[in-house]
């Protein structure tokens, strides 16, 4: 037996193993090139790249920087300000139903094809023909799959006529045509690559656009890459390339930013932001977005159908604490259904946290000993966090709140089936017009089951408001229209079963040498083409 030799052999073997694992690696100095914008973001909710199918913000962020729409909202203006897009100007017929759109000349697609009225007609009909989720936005103004040929026509090489079922407000149509669904696609290129699906599958992997950037690479759940279009009609972007990489974990996004491997960390937590604030070389940016957070009460519930109970609940949300302590920088207080920076916005905030008032109201409603309620919430940030905060603030007014968390899709199914008492959720604007939200919050045509409408989901019976909402859709004068929405909101604030408590903003951390990048804009998407580096 010679243990010494044995030990040496063992140590040698172990040492070799250790050595091979700890292979020395050197790395290049971290800094992104001056001509490229690199963003770390959560993009796993990006489902569709076809602009006529896409219906989520992550998709708009990409598509609005790649495709041009008929109209645009000035990204640098603080409130909604319409600009011409591919449509240079328009006239409306005497009956108010037919819009004649004058199409910009001299625009070329990335493929080199010239953009003409044919492309616009194809692109306006296509959403109705492929009939994916966002098509309902066109159907809501009377354009359908069946009448698309008749209602959307070419009337000149650079002129298109669209006839709606009613004389809609021009601002409504313009705002609708700023949305991703109003992107103009390269008809020739799409048809070359189309199967029987009008190019739907092909456009979900490729782009056929005329916008600021061209899509050069896309891997779901991994990354996408955009390359500058030097011939863009608005003037070429500063950055040659934009790379957005999917980084699911906030702490990881922060590390990447701190190391200088990305220019922007898109999804940080308030804790990360607080830690990065004041750090040299890093700036914090805040961009309001058209998404509101709300609680709602099911009016078919006997306890909740008493207006005094609802009024009491409205006094039990600690609006300031949510905005300042729970979600600092991620939201600001807001109490009506039209987000700030949209036509008809109203900064009226009549409610504040007042548990004594709530107790009084509950006693008047016959609940002197308080009540017990349940609230359904998605088991994720921020709804779950807000629901838990409300559990505490409601308790101060004698409302025992039971929080029922479940996965987002599960909660939604329950909500759409009207099986909730209270529900807490988030509502995003589909296109930047007040009608989009009014149609859901303050319209509930009697006798129709429509789970898409929030007023229906909460069994809120409002023939008067429904009529006012319909009328506001038709008001031709922009200022008069805004006034109508303000009146609707006043009524909403007083009587609705909705407790709107905040509007969201996107809070990002970026390298200090980056300017012009917008994580969100009045047009409801990120803006990459204004980004520049020093």
């Amino acid at each position: 037996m010679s243990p010494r030799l044995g030990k040496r052999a063992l140590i040698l073997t172990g040492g070799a193993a250790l050595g091979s694992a700890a292979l020395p690696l050197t790395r290049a100095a971290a800094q992104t090139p001056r001509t490229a914008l690199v963003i770390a973001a959560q993009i796993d909710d990006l489902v569709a790249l076809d602009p006529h199918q896409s219906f989520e913000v992550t998709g708009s962020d990409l598509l609005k920087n790649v495709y041009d729409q008929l109209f645009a909202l000035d990204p640098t203006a603080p409130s909604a300000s319409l600009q011409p897009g591919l449509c240079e100007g328009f006239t409306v017929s005497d009956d108010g139903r037919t819009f004649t759109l004058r199409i910009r000349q001299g625009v070329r697609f990335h493929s080199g094809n010239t953009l003409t009225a044919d492309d616009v007609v194809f692109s306006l009909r296509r959403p109705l023909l492929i009939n994916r989720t966002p098509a309902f936005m066109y159907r809501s103004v009377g354009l359908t799959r069946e009448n698309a040929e008749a209602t959307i026509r070419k009337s000149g090489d650079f002129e298109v006529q669209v006839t709606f079922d009613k004389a809609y407000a021009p601002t409504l149509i313009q705002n609708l045509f700023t949305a991703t669904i109003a992107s103009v696609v390269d008809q020739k290129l799409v048809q070359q690559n189309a199967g029987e699906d009008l190019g739907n599958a092909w456009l979900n992997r490729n782009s056929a656009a005329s916008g600021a950037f061209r899509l050069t690479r896309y891997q779901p759940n991994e990354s996408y890459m955009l390359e500058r279009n030097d011939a863009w009609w608005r003037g070429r972007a500063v950055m040659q390339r934009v790379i957005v990489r999917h980084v699911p974990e906030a702490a990881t996004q922060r590390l990447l930013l701190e190391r200088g491997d990305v220019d922007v960390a898109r999804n940080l937590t308030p804790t990360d932001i607080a830690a990065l604030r004041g750090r040299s070389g890093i700036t914090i940016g805040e961009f309001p977005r058209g998404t509101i957070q709300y609680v709602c009460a099911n009016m078919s519930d006997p306890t909740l159908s008493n207006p005094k109970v609802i009024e009491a609940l409205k006094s039990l949300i600690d609006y300031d604490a949510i905005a300042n302590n729970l979600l600092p920088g991620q939201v600001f207080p807001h109490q009506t259904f039209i987000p700030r920076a949209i036509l008809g916005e109203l900064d009226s905030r009549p409610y504040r946290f007042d548990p004594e008032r709530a107790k009084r109201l509950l006693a008047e409603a016959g609940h002197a000993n308080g009540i017990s309620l349940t609230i359904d919430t998605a088991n994720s940030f921020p709804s779950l966090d807000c629901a838990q905060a409300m559990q505490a603030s409601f308790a101060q007014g004698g409302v025992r709140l039971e929080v029922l968390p479940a996965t987002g899709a599960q909660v939604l199914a329950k909500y759409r089936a009207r099986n909730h008492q209270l529900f807490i959720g988030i509502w995003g604007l589909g296109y930047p017009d007040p009608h989009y939200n009014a149609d859901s919050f303050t319209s509930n045509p009697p006798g129709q089951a429509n789970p898409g409408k929030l007023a229906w989901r909460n069994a809120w019976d409002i023939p008067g408001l429904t009529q006012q909402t319909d009328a506001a859709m038709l008001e031709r004068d922009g200022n008069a229209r805004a006034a109508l929405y303000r009146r609707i909101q006043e009524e909403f604030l007083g009587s609705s079963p909705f407790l709107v408590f905040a509007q969201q903003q996107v809070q990002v951390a970026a390298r200090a040498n980056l300017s012009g990048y917008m994580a969100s804009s009045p047009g409801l998407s990120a803006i990459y083409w204004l980004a520049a580096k020093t």
Partner: protein
Amino acid sequence: MALAAGGLGDGRAARGASRLASFALQVTLTLLGLLAVTFFIGRVVPIDPVLAVVGDQAPRDVYEAVRRELGLDQPLWTQFAIYVGQVLRGDFGTSLVTNRPVTEDIARVFPATLELATLATIIGVALGVPMGIAGAVWQDRWPDQIVRVIGLVGYSVPIFWLGIVGLLVFYGILGWVEGPGRLGVFFEGIVDDVTGVILIDSALAGEWEVFRNALGHVILPSAVLGYFSVAYIARMTRSFMLEQLSQEYVVTARAKGMSEARVVWVHAMRNIAVQLVTVIALSYARLLEGAVLTETVFAWPGLGRYLTTALLAADMNAVLGGTIVVGLVFVGINLLSDLLYKLLDPRAR
């Protein structure tokens, strides 16, 4: 003589063929059972896949149209029959989350997991086996204590935390390794996908810059994952080895004056080899299922995260496709370890 030999050969071939057939049957039944269980569980969980597609705001007509499109208006058995029919033709359907064929998705995410799991297992074996043996040879002395502590830490520390701290120290502060993801953003798209394993593809293409970058990215997550294998493999090796070292043949070998290294590495090692292969194979298979938390922290687009995302979105095509892959991995690893047993243990031949 020739005749007899031929007869013997035929008999062996027949036995081999029948064994192969029974194996194939077993695998098919296993996979079918796996599919059925996953399919029916997926259909009874209260998640609505239609909502995952159309979103919160969709009106009823859109909702109904998508429901019909997904075939969810059919009876459950019909849905299952249609699905199995498609699978038999090699069509796993389209993922609702990525909008791409599930086979294409899996061809992309599985190599990422394979790369990570293989490196982690290599680290686990290279460190775990010698450590376990050291622990057994110097039982209750300091090397053993160290192995025990490392094992205990490996078992008890959450991998999520270890990953974040690892990133913070080795990437954030020291800058020794590359950051999250499989490749630096500026290295993407240089090398064509052949196997999908970037280390192999870049080596085949001779793109050594890409290879170095990929290695810099994979080293930390695989070390973190590998640490858990090290803990497991070292512990098991130690106890197998301890058992062998107390056997009489070891005493005999020592009494004959054989060197300790020979006793441990040749005699005892041969006797624990089969058990060790089982342990390593199990730990490898577990890693090949994908490690969700590690993949999330390191932004690693692997199978674990793909399946989790799919599951949360009720994307049953993706879940079922992924389940089949995991099933096949286990079958494959079992088969491989069976072959290894025969190689290592003459009694099993």
